[in-house]
């Protein structure tokens, strides 16, 4: 695959080279399945007569040069991203670029590049190599514009690194347990926490990792092929893209958190507060379905760094892992890193019994 040019910061008006011809699973490309009457037409017909609408229009007209107000206004009329035409996507993109650039005081690009033909993204993590250093967690935050405040709910991280205790089985406990004397039903070593994850064990903070008595297991969105989160979304704003990742059109998210309940991997986070994103730390290279700044009340999660991977670049977490435990690539290319891992290593999917078919694999040497 030949990667498209990464979006340049100053070319805010030029259209990315390959925004069309995505793979077939994307209903956005099915021109004929868009509803005949769009939301916009409907509102134009009925809504314009109401008093509230006149007030709103008035406000817009008086401050029509204000990027933020104009963008907010436009955003309320835009369709679900999947149902937008190419032209509408470009309009939405330009609107957001204007608003974000004004808001963060630097040129911000919003990419709308679609799925690249012949690419099905996959991820593999070497669970034996991970040392639990959490660099991936913080790389993801640096890349993906998560909220990073200090008050409750203001700090959002998409990767969780679970600490698993190695545990120890003891000879002294062998003949103990309960009920004692009547034939033991629960053995004395039952509560040995070998490989067990207890609540709070991702908050570990020793002087140095890896610790002698622990192993580590990072989890984030598994980009399921059969994603339960997609099935439950009442407004269908979260969906599977043609090249694999499950994405969210933040503008249509109503914050109902159904997906958070449905996801078996604790992958989704909600912005309960207005996100705290300092201007200097904001990453100005964004994707519409990826790391563009989110608003209060919407759900977000890992999207395999669409703003990077759609242009051929590794995800941010892959690039910083000091032990090289993280592997990313095209599952359709037999020479890619993930394909090689699947071919050669011992591999498992987390909670495979749930039939979610993750495209995120764990392996070990």
């Amino acid at each position, binding site marked *: 695959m*030949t990667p498209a040019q990464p979006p340049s910061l100053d070319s805010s008006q030029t259209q990315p080279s390959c925004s069309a011809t995505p793979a077939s699973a994307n209903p956005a490309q099915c021109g004929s399945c868009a509803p005949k009457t769009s939301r916009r037409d409907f509102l134009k017909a009925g809504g314009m007569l109401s008093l509230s609408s006149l007030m709103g229009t008035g406000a817009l007209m008086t401050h029509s040069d204000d990027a933020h107000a104009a963008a907010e206004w436009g955003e309320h009329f835009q369709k679900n991203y999947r149902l937008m035409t190419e032209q509408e996507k470009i309009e939405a993109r330009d609107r957001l670029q204007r608003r974000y650039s004004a808001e963060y005081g630097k040129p911000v690009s919003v990419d709308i590049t679609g799925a690249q033909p012949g690419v099905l993204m996959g991820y593999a993590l070497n669970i034996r190599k991970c040392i639990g250093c959490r660099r991936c967690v913080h790389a993801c935050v640096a890349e993906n514009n998560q909220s990073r405040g200090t008050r409750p709910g203001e700090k959002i991280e998409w990767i969780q690194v679970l600490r698993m205790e190695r545990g120890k089985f003891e000879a002294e406990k062998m003949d103990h347990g309960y009920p004692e004397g009547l034939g033991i039903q629960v053995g004395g070593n039952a509560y040995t926490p070998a490989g067990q994850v207890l609540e709070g064990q991702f908050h570990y903070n020793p002087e140095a990792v890896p610790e002698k008595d622990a192993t580590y297991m990072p989890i984030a969105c598994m980009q399921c092929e059969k994603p339960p989160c997609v099935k439950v979304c009442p407004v269908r704003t979260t969906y599977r893209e043609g090249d694999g990742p499950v994405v969210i059109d933040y503008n249509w998210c109503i914050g109902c958190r159904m997906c958070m309940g449905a996801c078996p991997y604790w992958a989704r986070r909600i912005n309960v507060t207005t996100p705290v994103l300092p201007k200097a730390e904001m990453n100005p290279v964004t994707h519409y379905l990826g790391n563009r700044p989110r608003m209060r009340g919407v759900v977000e999660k890992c999207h395999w760094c669409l703003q990077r991977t759609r242009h051929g670049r*590794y995800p941010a977490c892959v690039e910083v892992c000091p032990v090289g435990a993280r592997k990313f690539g095209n599952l359709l290319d037999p020479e890619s890193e993930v394909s090689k891992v699947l071919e050669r290593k011992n591999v498992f999917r987390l909670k495979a019994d749930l039939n979610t078919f993750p495209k995120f694999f764990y392996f070990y*040497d």
Partner: protein
Amino acid sequence: MKKIAIFTVALALCGGALYAAFALNSAQEEAAPTLAAQEAKDPLVCFESRKGASEVEQREIKPGLPNVKCSPTTGAALWYGDPFDGTVPMGKMPGLEKLPEGHAVVKPRSEKLAILPMCGTACHNGVGPSANPPALPKDKRPTAIPVMESLVPDLKDLQHGRGRIWCLDCHHTTKRDKLVDHFGDPISFDQPQLLCGKCHGDKLRDWRDGIHGKRIGEFASDGKKRWFTCTECHNPHNVQDGERNRGFIQLQPEPPPQLPNGMKDARHELVHPVAH
């Protein structure tokens, strides 16, 4: 669905006037660029894989876009704006011939090894003090040389090979600024994989196929990548890392996530165990 949309829009229309007013305020706050303030400070240098190996200095590649972001807690590189910063072509590597020219790059290790230029001349110029070729100890036990041990402290207690290898199994006998291959020919310090693969063939194969070690850049199998070489991650004089017996050295972790609201510390579950 339609209902929700209608409500949302109705609300938005009512709020339109308010929105516009707010937006004006926030737009005016933007003026002060924060990056200018950062530039005044000393250059920020962060380490990449482990401390003591490759490092990278932070600078701006485009307005508002740094080449690297460093962790304020540990000083580790946390994000790459430019993955090919300071790299050179990898050089010939058996098994990677298929890669397009210039698509495999590495960061030269020799620049980082401060005493390397001296090694080839000052002490080991290929001519032994009393004999030529130099007289080597017959038992191949490393000999304690105070100057060497003070220059490279790890040598005092070599943690590699469990006593079955010694200095000149890896270092060239006469060209001390080079490593050595099976034929006695010199290998550059920038290509340690050619040396390490002598014994660790399985690791070399996995590394060559991209499933051991790390690459950054483009993920496509024929894409341009910066390859991290063996010694950027492993300290060859200390791979056993004492008792822990792991190839990778211990590091300070990045800070933990926010605790759930109301939980005082991370040991909550351990202190309040679930009853059976």
